[in-house]
């Protein structure tokens, strides 16, 4: 017998080689979403819904200018608003530690800055009051009683770098360059010089928005002078457990919880800022619980703003030989090289990243990734355009990973590590996608196909590797990882034979419960309804020491499924091991007479037994059976196992082999610039599907989100004060289903080429990030002109000389 049920010796740390013990639920359609009802009928508890007895409300001043300094603030009038308990001011004695390398946000927060760096930023004052209305009233007065000095600001990254541009933070920097990074692989200059062809490309991308539907909300309650408990609605709230003592050193012990999340993702520092404000406010109000609300979370940007320049060297067959990038942007994740290196064979890549100081707003990786895919896709689609080649052919020619082509990866990775060497993800994705969109009959040279209705027909294509392709695929620096509170998962079987998985997590609306439960149910042979999760999502629930290793973020399934898979296998071993043990019943609990009873399966070995539908049975004699509940009635006090995520050697999982490709067919009205989507085809390699509907939900959601970001979502700033003007869901146009007129067709393939359990590959923000660039290529194919992102009607008309 192996250590874990069904895992062969030596494969414990190669989860892609595991197989599910059964597949009654995994891969099946039509399972009822365990989280669906509460979210549909409104009973799901979101952060702002929650009221804590005795809690005060706090709100911070949000800067009314892009860059300004408070000259004076008179709090006397605001303090008279009924219900106001405390106004904490920027020039009060500082509290906490105000130092942190890098990003602005936490660097200034515990001391409340008097100078803001973007409109809407927390600064100046925190009002603590009995209720939200009193906070609002007091803040309204405070705005009137505050004198500001407006300071220079920049909303355009290229303008910020101009030689005559005002230096906006002269106390910190000599110019407006916040940071600069250079990476090089291979010998780019030599490769460019020897390339038969080169092309220079410039793309500009306007800012999009986080467009959150619920602003940040954090509760903090002091349990003791040095101990707090908090509840946050931020995806990465668990990080605050580690960071709080860094900034507020008197706090020695922190217990954190996550709410059902309604759209506060990414941007750790923004979420942390809100949390620290709550902690500070609670400290200064005699320890009463404080709910801090940050209404301007909508100000957080989506991370896709910048100018991207590239010099591309290529052969006549479309093979890219070298690329030299210069990226000027301020994204929270500006790692443009990851995407192209993970999914192409080009060895010679140089990247210079310049991060200019700007006053646009906090960058929020809520919607990040599009700029990373843009670098990759633009490289190959521009080459295809120059050579008048089909871009799908150019994609295949360049497919590879980390400087190796697919033939090398097949020989050295797939075959060596036990993957199915006959599978080729991009080829398979392309075959399905091209068929679904009708590519071979519809693709044409740019700008040549005008329809009877006067519109131009266009068809576009983007591709990338499918991140996250491995467990623990993370960008977090080591120092951060070391402070994370990730713990093991626990699994108990209660007295009624129900399986309970223990692990804190963040609920983000991705049908987590059913998907995770399917893995445990299939691994253990339990009915789906007999598997439950103990998450600590509400203040009514107590946090356990158990944690999912990935808190439902981008790596949720690849990491957590691997934890769950092995935990389920271990749990099945545990259950079967009790099936042959004598049952010693000491008390009269449950109406069972005390005494010594024989095992449920005397003289059997675990390998002679199996479990199906929560019933243990003898494989050779299926009529010999007993329920897991029968067993648990006696052994439940001992039925507990735990497991960590397998510590897989990263060297074994370096090369990305899963791919995605997406297609958009459009009509572009040359008289209005309107883009009508005739069809959108989404194809992903899932590696192995657990919940097809959850997966498809990610695909549909990503398709809509990407469509909006690609075609008309754009943050509009007032050029005089730098204030964001379209900061609600009326003026900032997020698309809904009716905005895509044609069908969205989603396909999934299962190549097993991922490094997670069962060969699984993540889906996360893949699709939104890719599709966010897609209209650029469809529109170019239609009108024969390159249009910067987003490809709004205004920009299309301007490209056509009509705007």
């Amino acid at each position, binding site marked *: 017998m192996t250590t874990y049920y069904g895992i062969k010796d030596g494969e414990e740390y190669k989860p892609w080689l595991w197989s599910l013990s059964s597949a009654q639920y995994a891969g099946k359609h039509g399972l009822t979403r365990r989280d669906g009802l509460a979210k549909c009928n409104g009973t799901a508890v979101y952060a702002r819904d929650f009221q804590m007895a005795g809690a005060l409300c706090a709100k911070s001043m949000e800067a009314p200018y892009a860059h300004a300094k408070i000259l004076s603030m008179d709090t006397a009038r605001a303090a008279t608003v009924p219900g106001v308990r405390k106004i904490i001011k920027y020039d009060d004695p500082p509290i906490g530690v105000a130092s942190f390398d890098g990003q602005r946000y936490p660097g200034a927060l515990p001391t409340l800055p008097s100078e803001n760096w973007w409109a809407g930023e927390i600064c100046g004052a925190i009002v603590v009051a009995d209720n939200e209305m009193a906070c609002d009233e007091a803040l309204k007065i405070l705005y009137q009683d505050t004198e500001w000095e407006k300071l220079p600001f920049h909303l355009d990254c290229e303008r910020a770098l101009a030689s005559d541009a005002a230096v906006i933070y002269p106390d910190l920097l000599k110019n407006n360059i916040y940071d600069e990074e250079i990476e090089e692989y291979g010998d780019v200059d030599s490769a460019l010089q020897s390339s038969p062809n080169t092309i220079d490309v410039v793309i500009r991308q306007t800012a999009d928005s986080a467009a959150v539907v619920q602003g940040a909300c954090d509760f903090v309650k002091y349990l003791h002078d040095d101990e707090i408990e908090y509840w946050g609605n931020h995806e990465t709230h668990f990080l605050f457990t580690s960071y709080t003592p860094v900034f507020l050193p008197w706090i020695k012990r922190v217990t954190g919880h996550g709410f059902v999340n309604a759209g506060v993702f990414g941007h750790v520092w923004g979420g942390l800022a809100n949390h620290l404000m709550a902690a500070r406010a609670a400290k200064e109000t005699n320890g009463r619980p404080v709910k801090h609300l940050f209404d301007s979370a909508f100000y957080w940007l989506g991370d896709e703003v910048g100018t991207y320049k590239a010099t591309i060297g290529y052969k006549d067959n479309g093979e890219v030989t070298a690329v030299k990038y210069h990226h000027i942007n301020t994204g929270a994740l500006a790692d443009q090289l990851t995407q192209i290196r993970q999914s192409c064979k080009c060895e010679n890549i140089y990247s210079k990243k310049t991060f200019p100081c700007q006053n646009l707003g906090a960058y929020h990786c809520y919607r990040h990734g599009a700029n990373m895919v843009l670098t990759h896709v633009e490289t190959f689609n521009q080459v295809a355009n120059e050579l008048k080649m089909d871009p799908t052919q150019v994609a295949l020619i360049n497919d590879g990973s980390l400087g190796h082509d697919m033939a090398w990866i097949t020989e050295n990775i797939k075959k060596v590590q036990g993957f199915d060497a006959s599978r080729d993800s991009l080829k398979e994705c392309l075959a399905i996608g091209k068929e679904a969109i009708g590519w071979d009959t519809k693709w044409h040279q740019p700008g040549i196909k005008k329809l009877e209705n006067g519109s131009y027909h266009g068809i576009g294509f983007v591709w990338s590797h499918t991140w996250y392709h491995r467990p623990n695929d993370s960008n977090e620096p080591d120092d951060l990882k070391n402070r994370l509170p990730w713990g093991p998962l626990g699994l108990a079987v209660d007295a009624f034979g129900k399986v309970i998985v223990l692990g804190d997590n963040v609920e983000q609306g991705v049908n987590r419960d059913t998907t995770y439960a399917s893995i445990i149910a299939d691994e253990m042979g339990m009915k789906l309804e007999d598997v439950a999760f103990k998450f600590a999502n509400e203040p009514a629930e107590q946090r356990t020491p158990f944690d999912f290793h990935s808190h439902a973020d981008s790596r949720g399934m690849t990491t957590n499924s691997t934890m769950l898979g092995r935990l389920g296998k271990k749990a099945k071993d545990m259950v079967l091991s009790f099936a042959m043990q004598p049952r010693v019943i000491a008390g009269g609990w449950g109406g069972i007479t005390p005494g010594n009873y024989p095992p449920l399966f005397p003289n059997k070995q675990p390998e002679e037994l199996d479990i199906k539908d929560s019933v243990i049975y003898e494989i050779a004699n299926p009529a010999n059976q007993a329920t897991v509940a029968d067993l648990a009635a006696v052994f439940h006090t001992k039925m507990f196992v735990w497991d960590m995520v397998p510590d897989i050697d990263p060297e074994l999982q370096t090369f990305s082999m899963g791919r995605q490709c997406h297609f958009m067919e459009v009509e572009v009205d040359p008289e209005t610039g309107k883009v009508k989507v005739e069809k959108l085809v989404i194809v992903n390699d899932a590696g192995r599907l657990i919940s097809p509907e959850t997966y498809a939900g990610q695909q549909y959601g990503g398709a809509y989100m990407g469509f909006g970001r690609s075609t008309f979502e754009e943050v509009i700033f007032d050029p005089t004060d730098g204030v964001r003007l*379209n*900061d609600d869901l009326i003026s900032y*146009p997020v698309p809904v289903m009716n905005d895509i007129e044609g069908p969205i067709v989603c396909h999934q393939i299962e190549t097993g080429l991922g490094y997670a359990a069962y060969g699984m590959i993540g889906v996360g923000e893949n699709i939104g990030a890719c599709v966010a660039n897609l209209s650029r290529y469809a529109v170019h194919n239609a009108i024969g002109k390159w249009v910067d992102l987003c490809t709004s009607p205004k920009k299309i008309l301007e490209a056509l000389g*009509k705007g």
Partner: protein
Amino acid sequence: MSNLLREFNHVNAKSLDEAVGLLSETGAQAIAGGTDLLGTMKLYILRDYPRLIVNLKTIAPSLDYITDQDGVLKIGALTKLGDIAKSDVVNKKWSALSQAAQKTASPHIREMGTIGGNICQLPRCLYFRKKWNRFDCARKGGNACYALSGENRYHSIFGAVKSCVDVNPSDLAPALVALNASVVTTKRTIHCEQFWDVAIPNTTVLAPDELVKEIQIPAPSSGAKSTFIKFALRSSIDFPIVNCAALIGGDAARICLNAVYNKPYRATKAEDQVKGKAIDDTVAELSGNASVQDAIALPFNKWKIQIAKTMVARAVLACK
């Protein structure tokens, strides 16, 4: 800042007289569907917050009706946009209005919003609508139009009125102008071309204690056809970038653009191009070109001139 409503008094008016009496009080505001008013209150966009909300939906007899009375279409001010969109009576002879109602907002809003509210709605200028009256602009009694020197991609292409380059955002307004409608108020009957104005902060000539009772639209002349078309970023819900209604045929040639000027813009030069002519592509194009002959682009809204021209040409063709 939050979207919480502050305290206010609320009265269900039982009659028009009672409503008008209540509205003469300082700080009183009428509410019908509330889809515009509640938004302004939640975001605190105006200088003053209403102290009294007068509910018109409780007025008897109800102002929620659609009738064809001797060829004149009469629509009560409280008639919902959704009912207008679905009305066979309206669609039969006044299809431009039916289409405009159908293309306004979203299904939920159409089931709440009324025709009276739609034609009286406040500006949608991004500066005007910025939360907590961040920009105390000319339309609120301030000194400056921030859009004029700032961001103006969605603003007027026919110049400013009273220093304001905002546009009227109503979808129904151009249809009513094209259809030659009149607005019956508690004080008078106003031809719709005189109904809209650049007031502070309102968009109509209504006095504070004056209410819209009814819309009256004459039957189009024999052979006339009407249409409404709209261009917006999203087809699902958005306010118009440009919209256009036309009534052409018989002895009629009325074309009205909206979202291009402070008030619905009667495109008379475009009308001149179609009067007495058989409609074809050339006439439509000439009409479109003529409609923007007097247009003056602001720094960021030249694209709207192209769209306005196209909307007029397409509206003309749709009346063929």
